[in-house]
C-alpha cells in the first residue's frame, strides 16, 4: 500500500490530506485554526516521518512545531526554536521556509523574516543563526519586498553539504561552497528592468521569487524572478533567460520535476501590477527542455474566470504528484506530470504553502 501525505499551510490553519494507493486525497480536519502556517515540511529521511510547521500565532509570535505521528499530536521546543542572538537586536517575524537537508541526516534549514538562515541539527526542533550570512556586507542594503524582507528559498546540493544557495527578497540569490562560512551574491545575468539603462544588472538587490534545483544535474537551477524566468547551469554562476516565450514571465513559484531532468513548471500571472492568472485561467506551464519551449497545461482546471494568485511556496512536486494552491483556497493536483488535474480542496483559507510526500 502506498500512502501519500499532502500538507497545506494557509493563512488560518493547517490542513493535512491523505491518499491511499493512488486514491483521492481526503482532507482531515483543520489544525492550528486561526493560526497562519506559512511553511511546512514533510521529512521522510528517517523511517518515521516528521512533519514540521512554521506557524504564526498573530499576537503571540511565530514558532516551529513538529509532529512524529503524522499530525495527530504536535510538539514545540521548550525554548524558542528560532531566536536571533541578542547582539542582533532583531526579533523573528516569520518562518518562511523549512527544508530538510538531503545530505546531512539530522539537519534542517530554516529561512526566516527578517532575511536570515538558521540551521537545526536535531531534525528541526531547535535552530541556530548562520552568522556568516547575517554578517554579509550586503545585508544592510537588502530591502523588503512586498511580502517582507524574507529568506524564502533554500536550495541544497543533493550530496555536498558544503554547497547550497538561498534567495532573499529583496536581495537576490546567494550561494556558499564552504558549508555557510562564506556567501557570495550569484545574480549575474538577471536583469532588473526598473533600474536605469547601464545599471540593470546589479550584483544584488534582486527580487527573486523562487529557485528550484534540477533533479538530475545538481549544477542546474531554475529561477522565477520578479521580472523573468531564468536557468543557471553552474549553480548560480550565470543566469540565462528562459521566459521569453511564456505568455508572461511574471509569477511566483517554479518547481522542478522530482525525477525527470530538464522538466520544470511555472504558473504565469499577468504582471506585477496585475497579479491574476494570465487570461484569468489557471494554466500551469511546463518545459521539457530546461526552458527552451513551454506548453500550457489546464485540462481539468477551472474554466474561469479566476482571479487568485498562486504564491511562491504554494506549488510543489514530489513522487506524490504536482500540486498548487490558490489564494482563494483551492488546491489542485496532477498525477500525470501536469497533463490533467483534479480538485483536491476548495473553500480553504488562502493557501500559503503546499508540500507532499509518499510515506
Amino acid at each position: 500500500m502506498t500512502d501519500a501525505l499532502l500538507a497545506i499551510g494557509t493563512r488560518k490553519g493547517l490542513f493535512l490530506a491523505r491518499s491511499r494507493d493512488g486514491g483521492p486525497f481526503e482532507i482531515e480536519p483543520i489544525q492550528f485554526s486561526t493560526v497562519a502556517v506559512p511553511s511546512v515540511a514533510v521529512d521522510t529521511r528517517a523511517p518515521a516521518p516528521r512533519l514540521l510547521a512554521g506557524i504564526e500565532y498573530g499576537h503571540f509570535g511565530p514558532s516551529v512545531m513538529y509532529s512524529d505521528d503524522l499530525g495527530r499530536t504536535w510538539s514545540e521546543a521548550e525554548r524558542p526554536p528560532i531566536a536571533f542572538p541578542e547582539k542582533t537586536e532583531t526579533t523573528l517575524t516569520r518562518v518562511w521556509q523549512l527544508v530538510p537537508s538531503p545530505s546531512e541526516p539530522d539537519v534542517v534549514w530554516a529561512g526566516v523574516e527578517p532575511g536570515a538562515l538558521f540551521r537545526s541539527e536535531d531534525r528541526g526542533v531547535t535552530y541556530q543563526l548562520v552568522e556568516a550570512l547575517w554578517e554579509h556586507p550586503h545585508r544592510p542594503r537588502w530591502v523588503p519586498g512586498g511580502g517582507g524582507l524574507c529568506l524564502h528559498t533554500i536550495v541544497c546540493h543533493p550530496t555536498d553539504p558544503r554547497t547550497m544557495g538561498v534567495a532573499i527578497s529583496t536581495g537576490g540569490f546567494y550561494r556558499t561552497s564552504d558549508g555557510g562560512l562564506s556567501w557570495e551574491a550569484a545574480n549575474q545575468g538577471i536583469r532588473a528592468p526598473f533600474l536605469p539603462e547601464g545599471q540593470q544588472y546589479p550584483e544584488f538587490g534582486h527580487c527573486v521569487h523562487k529557485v528550484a534545483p534540477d533533479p538530475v544535474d545538481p549544477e542546474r537551477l531554475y529561477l522565477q524572478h520578479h521580472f523573468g524566468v531564468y536557468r543557471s547551469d553552474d549553480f548560480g554562476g550565470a543566469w540565462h533567460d528562459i521566459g521569453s516565450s511564456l505568455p508572461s514571465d511574471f509569477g511566483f513559484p517554479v518547481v522542478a520535476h522530482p525525477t525527470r531532468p530538464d522538466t520544470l513548471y511555472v504558473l504565469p500571472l499577468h504582471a506585477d501590477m496585475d497579479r491574476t492568472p494570465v487570461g484569468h485561467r489557471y494554466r500551469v506551464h511546463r518545459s521539457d527542455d530546461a526552458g527552451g519551449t513551454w506548453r500550457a497545461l489546464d485540462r481539468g482546471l477551472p474554466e474561469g474566470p479566476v482571479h487568485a494568485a498562486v504564491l511562491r511556496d504554494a506549488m510543489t512536486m514530489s513522487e506524490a504528484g504536482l500540486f498548487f494552491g490558490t489564494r482563494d483556497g483551492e488546491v489542485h493536483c496532477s498525477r500525470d506530470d501536469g497533463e490533467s488535474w483534479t480538485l483536491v480542496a476548495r473553500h480553504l483559507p488562502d493557501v500559503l504553502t503546499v508540500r507532499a510526500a509518499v510515506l
Partner: protein
Amino acid sequence: MVVFVLPSTLRRWVSGRTEVKVFAVGADRDSPPTLGSALESLRRAHPLLEERLRDEYGRIRRHISMFVCGENARGLGGLDCALPPGAEVYVLPALT
C-alpha cells in the same frame, strides 16, 4: 507570590489552567517585585507561555497588555511596574 490570570487563548500552554502563580522578588530586600521579575519567574516555570507574552528580548509583545490593579502596566512603568503583595496580573491580548 504573583498570579497571572490568563485568557482562554493562552491556556493551551499551561494545560488549560486559568491562572498560574509564580514567586517574584525585588532587586533587593527593600524593593517590591516588578512585572519584569515576575515574568522572569514565569519564563523559568512556564517557558512556552512566557514566550507567547514577550519576544526573545523580553519585550512585551505589541498586542499583549497586562493589567495590574486595574491599570495597564504600560502606564505604570512597563516591566518596572511595582507589584504589591499577592498582585494579580491580568493578561489581555488585543481583540481583532
